[in-house]
C-alpha cells in the first residue's frame, strides 16, 4: 500500500517527491479493471449465444449439398432394354453377338453426338439380338421371348396399313413381364422402298430391301434418337421447360375469344370436345400428370398486334414478328383458375375469332408462306389458334350480330392443332416424321395424343428435372438459411427438407432400378416438399430480427458501460506506467 501510505517522514534531499517513489506501484486496481474488461469480453460470446435464434431442427445443410452436387455432377440416367430382331436376313453372314456389338457401337456413336441429356438412358445399354430366318432362330440374350417364325404368317405385301401392322406387332411383342423393352424389327422383303415406322407402343419396324449394315445403323439411330431422346431436334423446346406443376397437375384452360361480338358471335360445343376428344388424352397422360380441363367463351377481346391486308393472299396477315404482341393481356382476362392450387401449371389454349375488319387473318411464316395451322405456341404459357369464320368475306352490314356454332368438324380440326401444340409444349414432335441421318422414319400418331414410348421419355425427363429442381430449391433454401442466421426456422421446414431428401434418394434408387413410374412419383414428391419448405408461410413472413434492432436494444447498456470499463483500464494502465517510472527513477538513484 505504497500509494496510500502517509507521506515519507524522513525528508531525503535527493528524493524528488514529484518524480520518484520508493515502493513498487501496486497492481490491484489494474488487475481489477482488466479483470472486468476481460470478463466482459469473455461474456460476449455467451450473450450472443443467448440471444441467438434457437433452431431446434436446422435443415441438414451437408446432406443438401451432397444431394445437389450428386445431381449436378451426373444427371440421372435410367437403364433401358433394347431388342433388335432381324427377320429374313442371312443367318450366315453375322452372328447374333456380332450384330449386338455393332448395334451397340453405332448407338454409342449416335449418343456421343449429343451430350447426355437429363433423363435419358444409361450409356451401358444392352441390346439383345434375335436372328429369325426361315431355317433357324438364334438369340444372344437369355430372356428373349420372340416367337420365332411368327412373322412368316404375315403377308407384308398385303398389309400397307401401318396402324394395323402396328397392332399386329403389338400382339406379337406383347410381353407380360412388365419390363419396358424397346424393340426394332428389321424385315427383309422384296420391296424396293425401305420403310421405317415407329409404332404407338414400344416398337418400330424397318421393312424393305435392306442390308445388314444399313439396318444396324438405322436400328441404332431409332434406339438412340427416338426411343431414348424422344425424337427431339435441336431448336425445339428444351425439356427443362416441361409444363408440369410441382404437384404434378396441369389445368388445360380452353378459351374461345370473340374479338368483336358486334360482327358475329361464335360458340362451341365444348362438352362434346371434352367428352370425345380430350378424355382419351387425359387418360393417356394420367401416369405423368393429373390433367383437368376448363373452358370459357369471352367477348370483346381484340388482339393487341397489328395486321395488314395482303392483296396477293387475299387476307389480313400477321407475321411471326408480331407474335410477342399478339396476346392482349389487358383485354384477355383468361383468369387464373380458382380450382388450380398454387403450384399447378395452367396452360391456356386460345381460339381467336377475328373481327370483321381483320378477317380472314392469316399467320405468315418467315419464309413467306401461310401457316397451315394458323396458330403458334408460347412455351410454358400455351397455344393460340386463329380461326377464321367461313362467313368472313360476306361483309354484309348486319344490324344484330348472328350467333353461330363452330361445327363439330371444325372443332375437331381445332382440337388436332391444339393436340399438336400440347405435344410441342411437352417438347415432342408434332409433324409425325423423324428425319435422321439414315433416312426418314414415320412416327405413328396415337389417337390418345401420346404414344407409349413418348410417355416413357416424358416420365424419365420429368423425374430428372424434378430432381434437378428439388436440388436447386433445397440448395437455395440452405444458402438462404445460412446467410440469415437470425431467421426463425420452424420445425416443419426442417421436417419437410428431411422428407424431401428421402424422396430424392428414393428417386435415385428407383431410377437405377429402371422403375419409371415410381421414380417420377417420388421425384414429384421430393420437388413438392422442397418447394413447400421454401414457400413456407413462416419463411415468407419477415421473422427476421435484424442486427440493427439488436444493437438498438443492447446499446443503452453496453455503450456507457464499455466506456467506463475501457476508460478505467486506460487510466489504470497509464498510472501504472507512470508510477513504475517513478519507482525506477528512485531505484536508479
Amino acid at each position: 500500500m505504497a500509494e496510500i501510505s502517509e507521506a515519507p517522514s524522513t525528508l531525503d534531499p535527493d528524493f524528488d517527491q514529484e518524480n520518484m517513489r520508493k515502493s513498487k506501484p501496486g497492481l490491484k486496481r489494474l488487475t481489477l479493471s482488466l479483470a472486468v474488461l476481460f470478463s466482459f469480453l469473455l461474456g460476449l460470446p455467451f450473450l450472443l449465444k443467448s440471444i441467438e435464434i434457437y433452431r431446434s431442427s436446422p435443415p441438414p445443410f451437408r446432406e443438401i449439398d451432397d444431394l445437389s452436387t450428386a445431381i449436378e455432377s451426373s444427371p440421372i440416367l435410367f437403364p433401358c432394354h433394347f431388342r433388335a430382331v432381324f427377320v429374313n436376313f442371312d443367318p450366315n453372314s453375322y452372328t447374333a453377338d456380332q450384330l449386338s456389338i455393332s448395334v451397340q457401337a453405332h448407338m454409342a456413336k449416335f449418343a456421343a453426338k449429343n451430350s447426355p441429356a437429363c433423363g435419358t438412358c444409361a450409356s451401358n445399354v444392352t441390346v439383345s439380338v434375335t436372328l429369325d430366318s426361315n431355317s433357324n432362330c438364334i438369340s444372344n440374350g437369355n430372356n428373349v421371348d420372340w416367337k420365332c417364325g411368327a412373322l412368316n404368317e404375315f403377308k407384308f405385301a398385303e398389309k400397307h396399313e401401318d396402324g394395323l401392322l402396328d397392332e399386329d406387332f403389338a400382339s406379337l411383342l406383347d410381353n407380360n413381364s412388365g419390363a419396358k423393352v424397346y424393340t426394332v424389327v428389321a424385315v427383309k422383303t422384296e420391296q424396293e422402298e425401305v420403310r421405317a415406322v415407329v409404332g404407338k407402343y414400344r416398337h418400330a419396324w424397318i421393312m424393305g430391301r435392306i442390308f445388314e449394315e444399313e439396318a444396324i445403323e438405322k436400328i441404332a439411330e431409332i434406339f438412340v434418337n427416338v426411343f431414348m431422346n424422344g425424337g427431339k431436334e435441336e431448336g425445339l423446346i428444351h425439356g427443362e421447360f416441361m409444363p408440369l406443376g410441382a404437384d404434378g397437375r396441369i389445368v388445360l384452360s380452353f378459351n374461345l375469344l370473340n374479338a368483336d361480338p358486334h360482327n358475329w358471335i361464335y360458340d362451341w360445343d365444348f362438352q362434346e370436345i371434352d367428352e370425345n376428344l380430350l378424355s382419351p388424352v387425359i387418360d393417356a397422360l394420367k401416369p405423368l400428370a393429373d390433367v383437368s380441363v376448363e373452358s370459357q367463351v369471352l367477348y370483346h377481346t381484340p388482339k393487341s398486334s397489328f395486321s395488314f391486308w395482303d392483296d396477293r393472299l387475299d387476307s389480313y396477315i400477321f407475321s411471326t414478328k408480331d407474335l410477342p404482341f399478339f396476346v392482349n393481356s389487358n383485354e384477355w382476362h383468361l383468369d387464373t383458375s380458382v380450382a388450380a392450387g398454387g403450384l399447378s401449371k395452367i396452360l391456356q389454349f386460345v381460339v381467336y375469332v377475328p373481327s370483321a375488319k381483320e378477317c380472314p387473318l392469316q399467320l405468315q411464316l418467315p419464309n413467306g408462306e401461310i401457316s397451315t395451322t394458323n396458330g403458334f405456341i408460347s412455351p410454358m404459357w400455351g397455344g393460340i389458334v386463329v380461326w377464321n369464320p367461313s362467313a368472313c368475306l360476306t361483309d354484309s352490314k348486319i344490324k344484330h350480330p348472328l350467333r353461330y356454332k363452330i361445327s363439330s368438324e371444325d372443332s375437331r380440326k381445332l382440337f388436332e392443332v391444339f393436340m399438336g401444340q400440347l405435344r410441342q409444349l411437352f417438347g415432342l414432335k408434332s409433324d409425325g416424321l423423324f428425319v435422321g441421318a439414315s433416312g426418314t422414319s414415320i412416327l405413328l400418331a396415337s389417337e390418345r395424343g401420346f404414344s407409349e414410348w413418348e410417355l416413357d421419355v416424358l416420365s424419365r425427363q420429368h423425374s430428372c428435372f424434378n430432381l434437378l429442381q428439388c436440388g436447386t430449391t433445397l440448395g437455395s433454401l440452405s444458402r438462404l438459411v445460412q446467410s440469415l442466421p437470425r431467421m426463425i426456422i420452424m420445425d416443419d421446414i426442417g421436417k419437410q427438407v428431411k422428407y424431401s431428401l428421402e424422396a430424392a434418394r428414393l428417386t435415385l434408387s428407383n431410377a437405377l432400378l429402371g422403375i419409371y413410374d415410381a421414380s417420377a412419383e417420388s421425384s414429384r414428391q421430393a420437388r413438392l416438399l422442397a418447394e413447400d419448405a421454401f414457400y413456407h408461410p413462416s419463411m415468407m413472413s419477415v421473422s427476421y430480427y435484424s442486427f440493427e434492432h439488436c444493437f438498438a436494444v443492447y446499446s443503452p447498456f453496453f455503450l456507457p458501460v464499455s466506456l467506463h470499463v475501457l476508460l478505467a483500464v486506460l487510466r489504470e494502465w497509464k498510472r501504472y506506467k507512470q508510477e513504475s517510472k517513478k519507482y525506477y527513477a528512485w531505484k536508479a538513484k
Partner: protein
Amino acid sequence: MFKCCLHSQLQFRSETSLESDHLMGSREPIVLIFLILISTYESSAKGGIAEELNEEFTEGLLLRPLPDRKVLAHFHFQSSVPPTRIYGRHHHLFPKSIYQLVNKFRVREMELSFTQGRWNYERWGGYDPISSSSAKPPGVELWADFDVPLDQVDDSWRNLTHALSGLFCASINFLEHSTSYSAPQWSFHSFAGKLRYGTLPREAVCTENLTPWLKLLPCRDKAGLSALMDRPSIYKGYYHSQRLHLTSDDFGTAKSNAGTMLEQTLTVVLQPNTLGARAMVSGKTLQPSWSLNSLFGRKVHGKCSVSKSSNVYVQFEQNLVSELKEVRKKSEAPESGILIHDDFGNNTIFEMSASPDRVVKEVENLQKEDSSILLEFLVEDYNDSKPFDLGLRWKLPVVWSCQQAPLHASRFLMGSGNERGAIAISLKSLSSNNTPTVGCCEKGSQLRINIFQVVPWYVKVYYHTLKVFIDGELQSTMENIEKIHISPSEDKVSPGVMEMILRLPCGVITAALTLEFDKGFLHIDEYPPDANQGFDIPSAVVSFTDFQASASFEDNLLNKLPILNELQERKHVISYTEVLLVPLTTPDFSMPYNVITITCTVFALYFGSLLNVLRRRVGEEERRLKSKGDFK
C-alpha cells in the same frame, strides 16, 4: 363470465300465431298473385326443359329522379346458368371464376357489396326495393351460406374470403379471423347455422374493385349499358355501391332447375350538372334536367350483343306521380287528370328526349290512388350511328318527398372518456310527411322490428344494461322484446352478436335502445397501423318485418325481366345504421423501447459508479487535499 351465464341464449316468444293471423288477412291479394305467379312459372319451367335450358344474361338500368335534385342510377346485370347435372360444367356466358368459386366452396347463397358513402334514407327513400336491397353499409359487407357440414362452415368461409379477396383486389381476407365475422342465428337471413356474416367498414372502395367486378360481365364495359360506367363520373357521386349476389342450388337435393344465378348491381347517386344558376320558374327552383351524357359523360351505343334484353327504365315514384297530377291540375284545365301514354315524351311538366317504348304501372294492393310508373326504353334499336342518350327536362317546379321507412333508424355513442360508454340505437317516426306509418295496423297491434348488431370484442358490451325507451320513457325491457338472442363476445376469439325482435306500440314517435360498454385493451400487436383513428363498430341492420318493400307491376307476368323481378322480389324493409367510431386508449408504441433504454441507463450508471468506487484511492486523494491546504 358472469355476463355470459346471465344473458346468453335468452329467448322470448309470445303470441306470434295471433299476429300472423292478422297479417294473413291483409296479404290475401299478394298470396293470390303469388299462386298465379307460381303456376305460370311452373308451366314455363316445364316448357323450358322441352326447349332446352340455356345460359342467359340480361342487363338493365333504372334511373330515378330524387327529391333532393339528384339522380339515382341502378345498373342491374344478371347471368344465370342451369344446374350442372343437366347442363354440364362448360359455360358460354357465365363467368368461369364465379362458377368455380361456387363449386369449390359449395356456396348456396352469397352477397358481397362494396360501398362508398352512406345512403341517405330520409332523402332518397327507405321503403322502396332499391333502398332495401342496394343500400348497403359503407365498406365491404359479405355474407355467405354454405352447403357443407356444420363443422366445415368456418373453413369454407375462410377459404372463400381469401378467394374473393384475390378476385376483387380487396382486403376481404381480413374477414377470415373469427373475431371479424359472426354467425347470425335467425335475424339476418333465415339459414340454420351455416350462414356467416362479416363487414369491413373501413375498406376503401375504388376502381380497382370495379374492374374485376366488370370482368364478370360478358361484355365488361366495352358494350351495352355498362359502357356508361365512366370511372370519374361514377366515383364523384354521392353514393356508390357495387353488389354481387349469388344463388346456387347445385348442391341441394331438390331437383329444381334454377341452377346458379349471379346478380350484379351497381347503385350510384349522382348530382346532375346544372352549370351555373338554377333555373327558376315562378319563384321556385326547377329540378335539374339531366341526360345520360350529362350524368355519365357517355352514351349507350347499343346493347351488349350477348344479352337477352337490355332496357333502360325511368321511374317516377308514387309521391312524384301524385305531385305531378297536382301540378297538372293547377296548371291546366282538369281534363283527364291521369297521365296518358302518349304524353310522356312531352307534356307540360317535363319533357323526355325519347318517347318510352312501354309504360309500366305499379299495381298497389294498398288503397292508394296513385302508384309509381316505370317508363321503359329498349336499347336494342340504337347503334353507333344513333346512340341512345335519354334526357329529362323539367318545365315546372315539382317538390315531392320519398317514401320513408316506418321508422328512421340511427345509432350513436354516448358517454365520454376512454374507459366506458354506451351505444344507443334510436328509431324515429317521420310522421311529419304525408306517409306516416305506412300500413301500420289500425287496431292497436304492434310494430315489429328486427335488430341485428355485431360488436367487436374490444368493445365489451354489458347486455344486462339493455334499456328500452319509448317516446322518451323508460320501459320494461321484457315487455317490449319479443325474441332475443345474444352471443357475448369472447376476448380475441369472437365478436358479440345481438339479434332481437322489438315490439313497439303502433303510434310510436321515438324509440331508443341503449347498451353500456367498457372499452377493452388490445395487445400491442393488435393495433392497426393508424391506431389513433379509432375503431369501427359495423352498422346494425334494422329490418321491419311487417313491411314488404316490393312493387308489383301490371305487366304480363310471363316475360318478366330480371330488373323488374328484383323490384318485385318480396323483401323486408331494411335499413342500415351508421358506422360508429370508437376511440380506444392507444398506448405509446415506443414504450417498450423507452423502458429498455431507461433500465439500461440505470444499470450502466450503477455499474460505472461501482467501478469508479473500486478504483478510488482514498489516501492519495486526502494527501493531495492536504498538500493543497498546505500551500494555502
